[in-house]
């Protein structure tokens, strides 16, 4: 069916030119009816939506309608120009344009427009009555995103509520996490061996959430290395990340009361290109004989190159990323891996700051809500009830 439609469609294009010279009025299909033009909902204000009832020969009658053309004019009796075309069977069209005034395709808002729809067969056409006027205007709230709005509010309230509970001194329990317990041992090992610690923040930018979570962890680890008087090396692949890492490590040394031991040249930039960066880090691992390697942040294909080279050097390795595709390689090749969400939790675990632990509790509450919705939603869906599904459905 689809195939025939496409073939007809391409023939139409060829015959289109013949059609102009041989109008055959007696063959024209019944025109589309009930044409309506109105502002497109939930948009920036540069589009009008046109709907119509299909021609009597589209899918029924002679079944020879192949497409609809949508025409626009600024006056009901003015010259109509073609704005677009849709294949037969469709009954809506969004006439869209650019929002920049200097753009050739600019669509002015708050201006009257008239539309008509033309039903086309291979060699004839018929036009609907004129619809309009309609104006395009921008909305101030996207109704399709209401579920997200509710989610945003609810989650924000949960996080703030738990944080204020924490401020009031409520203590929260969190279960032990293997990767976290290993951090202290790993730093201790480097101290015993008298070898440096390598900390890799990944390939993310300073604005990636995973990188920011990693900064907090770096801060805690820097404090511990300062206490142990162990050298920490942080090669970076983004200049802003480098700047932030310098501040973070410095703050860690301040917290430990040893600002004098901080050496800026140990937190440096190499290059922003993925594999050149990896080549250089590989070299650092083998030449500096790092005792402990941390890989925490955003990682891509390089994850396994780093982890295997580190294992050749005999380093203890602790990894963590929210990049799902790379977790398997970290799990296989490093000693401990913080999987996905555990990376975000790690900063709260290491610092034991009540405020950060509070946010962790809010995450757990949200997770419980998600799990309950999941389970009850699936049960409801088995009985063809889609209430839960609609709660989570976002229209873009």
């Amino acid at each position, binding site marked *: 069916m689809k*195939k025939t439609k*496409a073939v007809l469609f*391409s023939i139409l*294009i060829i015959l289109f030119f013949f059609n102009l010279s041989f109008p055959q009025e007696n063959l024209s299909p019944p025109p589309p009816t009930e044409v309506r033009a109105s502002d497109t909902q939930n948009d920036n204000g540069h589009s009008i939506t046109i709907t119509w009832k299909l021609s009597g020969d589209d899918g029924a009658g002679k079944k020879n309608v192949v497409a609809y053309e949508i025409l626009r004019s600024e006056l009901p009796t003015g010259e109509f120009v073609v704005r677009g*075309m849709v*294949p037969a069977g469709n009954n809506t069209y969004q006439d869209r344009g650019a929002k920049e005034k200097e753009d050739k395709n600019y669509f002015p808002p708050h201006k009257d427009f008239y539309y008509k729809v033309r039903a086309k067969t291979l060699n004839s056409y018929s036009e609907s009555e004129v619809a309009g006027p309609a104006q395009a205007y921008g909305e101030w709230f996207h109704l399709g995103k209401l579920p997200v709005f509710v989610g945003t509010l609810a989650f924000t309230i949960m996080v703030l509520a738990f944080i204020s509970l924490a401020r009031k001194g409520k203590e929260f329990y969190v279960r032990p996490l293997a990767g976290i317990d290993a951090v202290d041992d790993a730093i201790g090992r480097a101290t015993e061996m008298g070898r440096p610690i390598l900390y890799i923040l990944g390939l993310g930018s300073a604005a990636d959430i995973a990188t920011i979570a990693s900064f907090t962890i770096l801060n805690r680890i820097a404090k511990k290395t300062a206490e142990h008087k162990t050298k920490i090396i942080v090669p970076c692949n983004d200049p802003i990340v480098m700047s932030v890492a310098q501040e973070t490590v410095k703050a860690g040394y301040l917290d430990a009361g040893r600002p004098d031991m901080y050496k800026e040249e140990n937190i440096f930039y190499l290059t922003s290109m993925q594999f050149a960066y990896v080549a250089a880090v590989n070299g650092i691992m083998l030449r500096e004989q790092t005792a402990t390697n941390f890989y925490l942040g955003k990682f891509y294909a390089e994850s396994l190159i780093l982890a*295997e080279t580190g294992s*050749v050097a005999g380093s203890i390795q602790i990894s963590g990323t929210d990049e799902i*595709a790379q977790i398997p390689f970290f799990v296989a090749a490093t000693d401990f891996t913080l999987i996905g969400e555990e990376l975000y939790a790690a900063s709260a675990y290491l610092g034991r700051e009540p405020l950060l632990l509070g946010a962790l509790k809010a995450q757990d509450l949200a997770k419980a809500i998600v799990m309950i919705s999941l389970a009850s939603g699936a049960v409801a869906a088995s009985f063809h009830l889609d209430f839960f599904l609609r709660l989570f459905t976002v229209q873009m």
Partner: protein
Amino acid sequence: MNFLEKLLALDRRIIFLFIAIAVALPLFFTVKLHIEVTPVVRNLHNALEALPPGSKVLVSLDYDPGSMPELQPMAESFFRYCFMRDLKIIIIGLWPNGPIQANSALEIILNEPDIKKKNPKYGIDYVNLGYTAGNEVVIERMGSDIPVTFPKDYSGNKTEDLLLMKGVKNFNNIDFVYNLSAGYPGTVEWVLFGVDPYKIKLGAGNTAVQAPQIYPYLNSGQLVGLLGGMKGGAEFEIATGKPAKAVKFMFSQSVSHALICFFILIGNFAYFATRKKKGA
């Protein structure tokens, strides 16, 4: 240290050596492996077979040298197929390197004896319109006007002057779109900005890493067919009856996969054997 213990703590350089051999050696042989054509590749092939000779096929190469091993054989086999079937090829790239990759694939295909006999001509049988910046916006603009989006071809000729481009205004004049993709922008954008609004018929080849993300579009019918990784490329070559690079490379794949499986098995054998000894 006895043999088993040595095996257990095998120097990884021995594994490296074996892998290198397992990949390199099969390249010297042409072995006809049995490769079954999966439905997703079969569907793509069927859709192409349904195109009458003279149909215009748009090929978008959206990758760079990093993905060459997987996608270049797909580009070559597709060009070969089009020339053999007399389908007209219009090449573009959403990645700056795409049109360059196309040229190096064409160089090889145009020198094959079967194709030489057909003697395809630039501007009549195939054109390379080059790269235009703008990612998915390029697809959107092509929907209204292809010659405006690509005013000149790769070598600087005016697009309007190319015989093949006469009468090609927008997607309505294109019979099939084939996209080779290694990420963004790529197949996802072609589906969202080409298939959905303009109802183009789309087939795609993807890197193996990328392919699982594309599967939902196959199930929903937005995508006609998909070649996933080197294996998909090999299946397409089998389907078209012209086994070439991908099929040849698949022999290396099979041998190296088998080698890794073998290593895992002997590693576990050594692990069990030494543990039993310790237990006793």
